[in-house]
């Protein structure tokens, strides 16, 4: 194939993009838009959570611990336990929310967390109805 002069000049056409409006998302200054249905942090509606540990059983990363809570918010919670998720293990596959019988465990679209202490990444889901 013969290389023509046109092929050397045509790429300069990209310069016309200088006049277009910048498309960069300026994240720290402008807050990121939340996407509905994004798999972010866990939320757990404590008034419906029954403490059944289905989520713990299905999690292949063994990321979920069942821990005791002080105040019973749901009389049907027989074990008095709620899930706590180790974000050093979780892969946000959302299998735990799929198997949750009362649908109390959910994922919200908030997902950004940076921290310099590695021991803080044990996450107790926010008590938030969805």
């Amino acid at each position, binding site marked *: *194939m013969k*290389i*023509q002069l*046109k*092929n*050397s000049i*045509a*790429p300069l*056409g*990209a310069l016309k993009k200088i006049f277009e409006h910048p*498309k960069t998302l300026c994240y720290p200054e402008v807050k990121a838009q939340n*996407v*509905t*249905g*994004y*798999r972010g942090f866990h939320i757990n509606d404590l008034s419906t959570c029954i403490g059944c540990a289905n989520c713990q*059983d*299905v999690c*292949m990363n063994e990321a979920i611990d069942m821990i005791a809570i002080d105040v019973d918010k749901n009389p049907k919670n027989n074990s008095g336990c709620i899930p706590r998720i180790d974000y050093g293990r979780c*892969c*946000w*596959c*959302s*299998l735990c929310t799929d*198997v949750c019988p009362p649908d109390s465990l959910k*994922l919200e679209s908030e997902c950004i967390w940076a921290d310099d202490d590695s021991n803080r990444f044990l996450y107790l889901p926010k008590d938030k109805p969805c």
Partner: protein
Amino acid sequence: MERKTITIFHGPQHPGITGNMSVELELTGETITKARTHVGYLHRGFEKLIERRTVIQAFTIVCRICVPEPDPNEANFALAVEQLAGIEVSEKATYIRVMVLEMARLAAQLLWMAGQSGSVGLGTVGQWSIYDRDLILDLFEALTGGRVYHMYIYPGGVRRELPEGFLERLGALLDYLQKRLVEYDRLFFDNASFQKRAIGVGVVKSEEALHLGYVGQVLRGCGLKRDVRRDNPYFNYAALEFDIPTQSGGDVFARALVRRAEMRESIKILRQVIAQMPTEGAIMQKLPKHRKFTLPKEDTYVAVESARGEFGYYMAGDGSEMIRRMQVKGPSLIHGFTLLESLLVGEELSNVALIMNSLGICPPEIER
């Protein structure tokens, strides 16, 4: 004058390498006299981990096998499980799967374009194409809830219903991409500096290509019309209209041209999917005994066409909840060893990154 031979490592910490791997090169002057591939920097033992997990637990881990393009893994896993267990998938789910796979192919080609152009020093192309890839990832985000790892194609169907207005958004994006492809032609494929670097470099001989098991663009770049979507159709590719582009050169430029045409074919397929998408119907066929699902003592081999060639899974069940053996056959194993080691001999050092990018070598799938 006596010439000295030196040995250098190209990678793993090197900007011109496609992922975390390395090539040990023996050089005489600028010319390579011997190449040896080293992998294992990303070995995670997937096949061992899958032996310890039940079917639905293993489903979440397979997409990590190939990082730039996770969806063919999910499709393969779902295909293999469905074939072993004899599950039928609804028409709508099949269409959604094809859509996801083609979107993933487009995204992977755009990512490839950034790597390929970076290896010849055209930075602008990467700035554009990764932006456009992000627009596809935005759609994935709305559809599957994940940006890179979608975990969406589930044995028995797909996990979520299409969000409202999704097909319209996809159609608008395709219109946009179609316009952009013309600009990419001008900026990259027709660019004299790319053509000068790429033509005649890394030529694959077509007579040995079939026997040595090369796949994807390497085959199609030397004029051999092989594509799993056509030869061995899965999902409903048999009912869709598309061409398989080929080129005869066998060099880096021919493979680039094949990819350029493939992007247009993907857009064509996606338009048909949008037009034919059933509005009614279930998206998921529930697995019997969902969490304690068992596979019969059988084995099978399934393959799909990824953006870089045939991607196959061998799967054997043993009558228990676990999968006895799942072995991955990625396109990069043969390309990264047999082909790359022979192709690099006689080339110049500056062409290593160019050739590796053009073969689309992806180390996580070589060693799993």
